């Protein structure tokens, strides 16, 4: 076989093996058949990045540490002060839309945005810009996720404020199995509060003290559709936070279409038993 780095001996062996494939075939088919069936693609968190800015600049930019992949989902947790409007853009001409309403708590507001079926690549940057009002603080956390539907990806969302040692948002009831659940909590760090993920969620961006601001993110791939709330443990229970959640459909795998011309002759031979 040319070009496939198989030597002649192994290729001859492979030809011989083709005459007696039944046992191997049965083993392979049996092995494949024992794997649990799944009609959804495997959703997976790929990477995240974050940036915090203070000062008079109306925008700030986060940079992914490694190349992003076309077709993936980008989810953005943004929080800023003065609570004018904000928009998300990037250097790959992807389109970002809001996944939740803008949630306000005192001087802080927060919102989840996303871009589906992205164009990815190297040095991918995501920028948040305040389009109205005068902001001093902006914090943004950005996730890249694979295996999410490439159109109509958003299923459910929830938004609110929460306080106490155990904080939460939701519940929402997802419509399909295998969804990507993204949740974020933000607060002005006056009380030195500190969130951490609880329950089934995995913490991605910890609630570090970025100046006087903090935004935490966490996620979960829900195996089976149903009710879900995002929950946090807060170190300073008296402090209130904005809490938000968005859920995204897993992609339904596109199966292969055989477009090569049909082999009528081979089928005829098999019918004749030759």
């Amino acid at each position, binding site marked *: 076989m040319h*070009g496939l*780095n198989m030597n002649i001996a192994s290729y001859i062996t492979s030809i011989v093996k083709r005459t007696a494939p039944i046992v191997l075939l049965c083993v392979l088919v049996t092995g494949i058949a024992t794997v649990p069936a799944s009609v959804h693609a*495997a959703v997976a968190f790929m990477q995240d990045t974050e940036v915090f800015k203070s000062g008079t600049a109306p925008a700030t930019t986060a940079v992914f540490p490694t190349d992003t992949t076309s077709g993936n989902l980008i989810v953005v947790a943004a929080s800023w002060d003065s609570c004018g409007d904000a928009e998300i853009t990037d250097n790959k001409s992807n389109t970002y839309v809001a996944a939740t309403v803008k949630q306000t708590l005192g001087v802080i507001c927060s919102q989840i945005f996303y871009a589906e079926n992205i164009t990815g690549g190297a040095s991918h940057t995501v920028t948040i810009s305040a389009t109205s009002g005068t902001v001093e603080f902006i914090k943004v956390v950005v996730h890249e996720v694979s295996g999410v539907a490439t159109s109509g990806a958003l299923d459910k969302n929830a938004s609110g404020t929460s306080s106490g040692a155990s904080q939460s948002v939701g519940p929402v009831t997802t419509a399909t199995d295998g969804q990507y659940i993204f949740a974020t909590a933000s607060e002005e760090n006056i009380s030195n509060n500190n969130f951490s993920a609880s329950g089934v969620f995995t913490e991605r961006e910890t609630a570090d003290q970025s100046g006087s601001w903090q935004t935490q993110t966490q996620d979960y791939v829900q195996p089976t559709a149903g009710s879900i709330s995002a929950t946090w443990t807060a170190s300073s229970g008296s402090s209130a936070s904005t809490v938000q959640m968005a859920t995204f459909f897993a992609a339904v795998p596109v199966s292969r279409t055989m*477009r090569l011309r049909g082999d009528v002759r081979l089928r005829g031979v098999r019918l004749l038993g030759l």
Partner: protein
Amino acid sequence: MKYIAVSLAGFVCGIGVSVLFPVSHMLTGSTDSSLSGTQLREGIIVTASSDEATFTHPKLRFSLSYPKELQVSEYDEGGGARTILFQKQNEQYGFQMFVVPYGETTITPERIRTDIPSGIVREPTTVVIGDNIEATVFWSESPTIGESREVWFVHDGYLYEVTTYAKLDTILAHILGTLHFSR
């Protein structure tokens, strides 16, 4: 005597059918016109020699050389997937590349079951093709084309499933020897 007459009549009819429908018709394949999918025109074709042409895909950033007698067409399969078909007109001669976004780094049993419902995977072997790309090659069976040669690999977030007729195994190996990704 009656049975002999019936058998003889059947034999004569069989010969008649063979004359009316020559072997060449039986060898002619068919393309299923019911297949859905939007045709794309993203690839760039450059004639490289009297026998070969080079196909370059600007989005997937690969190129390969192929017999220039093959016609190239590309189909949007939805969900970011596409099929690039290299096929000689009216003949069972060619190959196709099905390319689908893929979050895994290896070929999973689930993916095999998705695209080969029969699960027929014979003699899977890991090889290196073209531009130092590690691929899995195996024999399979397709309801459409019969015995097939499959070359599957993952590159830059996509799964590539290259398929050809089993009889064209050597030709496909030569073509994939020219496969090159620009980064």
